[in-house]
């Protein structure tokens, strides 16, 4: 019994780290643009496919070190996703900046459709699932009676390191300060001499790069990727962002772990839970939106108007 619980804990930390990386993107975008970037899930998916291409190329080039390949996958998918994210912002979201919620929302849904369909059509065999390259998939070690997976441990550490790096970036650097200032009040930031366009672009760079990392992690963990996997991740990601309080960067950092914990608990405790785990995630989403709209961290705000 004890071993299963440890195993569940490790599981929720692994997927929680992934959700967190995606959630940070959602919350960053919402902060600077007041936009729920539904296409962010597709960026995640794109990260996975970039990782796969890197693995193929590495094989062609004869690179054998698994660790090096994983490292290259992370680096390249971050780069590709950062660029794609910035392009999305420049060509789709900037023209509709400040428009009614509905317009921005439909734009991001449509951008998501474009990315997803483009991968489906133009990636070789894009409509089918692809096996992912994961060099350490069978390696594990024993800790007492608990069997631990190297990949999982690696992913947990990676996500923690990255999240901490983002924390430092946002909290300590002037780039992060500009981001926070823009989130707080875009017009005020502009008046203080901050180039808001650049801040927003940087935000998309950062958020999308993290989404790309999550995409690679997902592949390493589940060993298979598909063109339509982005949407599910998008939902988990923005649920995590909402749980932490949309726009609240620090909140998103643990929102992902909460969503993951809910999922793992539902599967563990409820019979046939795996079929309904997403239902519970969505219920969590709705529940938080309705009862604690500023997230679980902050005290409920006064109803105004």
């Amino acid at each position, binding site marked *: 019994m004890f071993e299963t619980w440890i195993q569940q804990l490790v599981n929720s930390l692994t997927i929680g780290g992934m959700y967190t990386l995606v959630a940070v993107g959602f919350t960053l975008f919402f902060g600077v643009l007041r936009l729920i970037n539904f296409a962010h899930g597709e960026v995640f998916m794109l990260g996975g496919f970039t990782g796969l291409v890197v693995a193929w190329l590495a094989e062609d080039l004869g690179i054998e070190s698994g660790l090096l390949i994983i490292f290259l996958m992370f680096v390249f998918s971050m780069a590709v996703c950062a660029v794609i994210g910035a392009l999305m912002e420049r060509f789709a979201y900037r023209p509709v900046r400040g428009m009614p*919620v509905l317009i921005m929302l439909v734009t991001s849904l449509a951008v998501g459709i474009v990315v997803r*369909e483009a991968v489906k*059509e133009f990636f070789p065999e894009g409509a089918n699932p692809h096996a992912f390259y994961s060099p350490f998939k069978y390696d594990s070690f024993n800790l007492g009676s608990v069997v631990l997976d190297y990949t999982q441990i690696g992913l947990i550490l990676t996500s923690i390191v990255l999240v901490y790096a983002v924390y430092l970036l946002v909290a300590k650097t002037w780039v992060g300060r500009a981001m926070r200032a823009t989130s707080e009040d875009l017009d005020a930031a502009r008046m203080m001499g901050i180039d808001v366009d650049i801040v927003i672009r940087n935000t998309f760079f950062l958020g999308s790069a993290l989404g790309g990392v999550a995409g690679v992690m997902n592949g390493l963990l589940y060993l298979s990727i598909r063109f339509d996997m982005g949407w599910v991740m998008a939902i988990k990601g923005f649920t995590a962002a909402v749980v932490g309080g949309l726009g609240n960067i620090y909140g998103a950092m643990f929102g992902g772990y909460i969503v993951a914990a809910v999922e793992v608990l539902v599967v563990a405790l409820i019979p046939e839970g795996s079929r309904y785990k997403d239902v519970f995630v*969505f*219920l969590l989403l709705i529940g938080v*939106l309705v009862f604690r709209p500023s997230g679980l961290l902050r005290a409920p705000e006064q109803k105004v108007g």
Partner: protein
Amino acid sequence: MPEVDFIDTQVAREDTRTLAEKARDRLALGGCQVALFAAFLVGIALEDAILVTGFLLFIVAGAVGWGRMPKLNSWARNHLARDKRFAQLVLLALLVLFPFVFLDNPYLIHLGALAAIFAIMALGLNITLGFCGLLDVGFAVYFAAGAYASSQLAVIFDVSFWIGLPIGGLTAAFFGFLVAWPALRVSDHYLALVTLGYGLIMNLLHRNFTFLTHGTDGVINIPPPSIFGWDFVTPIEIGDLELPFQMNFYFLALIITVLTVFVSIRLRDSNLGRQWEAIREDEVAARCFGVNVRRLKIIAFSTGAFFGGIGGAVFAHMIGFVHPDNFVLLTSIMILAMVIIGGMGNIAGVVVGAVALTLIPERLREFEDLRMLLFGGALVLIMIYRPQGLFPNSRRRRELQAEKINTLIAESGRDDAEAPGLPDEVKV
């Protein structure tokens, strides 16, 4: 007084045209309608991908050109306003004529029926979103509720379609009512997320509550509607002419669409509609002036959902098969896009949007899966370049009593005494 002239132009004048002038105007108007309709028929009959693409580009060019010609615009608008009834009758006649043009191509008639079904649903969403301003990204829920309720009633309990139809609508209305409760507490992005989550939850339940929905096996063998033993898949024969059975569904859907349009107009022009619009414009101000926001939002959600359910019920009995894949997020986005592209709140625009978004993807079948990519790309471009939709909802001018206004102005000469040219008007 210059203002008096100004007023005069706004007020619907008595029709002073002679009989000949009237006939000339109507001929011109009707001619334009017939010409447009003919172009439409050619468009949907095209099979070749290149021709279809060319036709679409032609439409886009036409739409852009139309926007650049204000004179033509106002000419059309004036004519439409003057002979509204006439134009409506011509349109109705053309729609009745439509299936007879394609007697040898029943698939097109089927598409026409499908377009009408989506028009019903889009009009439903238009009530929630266009009139009351409530962002509902989970409209497929109501589509599903109507489809499942009426089809399962028919399959399991052998209930007639004519009873299943209103029950389907009411079931959907109940689902609208359900989401209204949490939706009342949130707005904007949060409302979008709540309805989105609602749609996703319901779709998961469609897949997993197999005792209600047969899960991913779907509901099969849904009987077609029937009247006095004659069912809708039996073709009507007139003499030697056998009319394709798709026509029966087409007319069924058309009649319901017309009814939905009628209800939409009545609601829009009523006290209720005005209060909905007030909520859309400024909820706090509306509440301060006595609008019962809670009640009206619930009505908006339920009414919109009702038509979603009606559309779903007709859909189920026409296609004969209902599957959870029909009710995914993409369906909701499609219906949402119909409303936005048409022009939120504009009833005619929404119908055009529904017809366009049903027919165009079907005509692009040659492009196979690329059409979703094209749809996404087109949607992005529309959001950027024409977010208000093809037919933005302009204020409907009321027909006011001109004399009353003029007397009131004449009586209150006070303000006109003020020196002209004062920096009175600070434009914001």
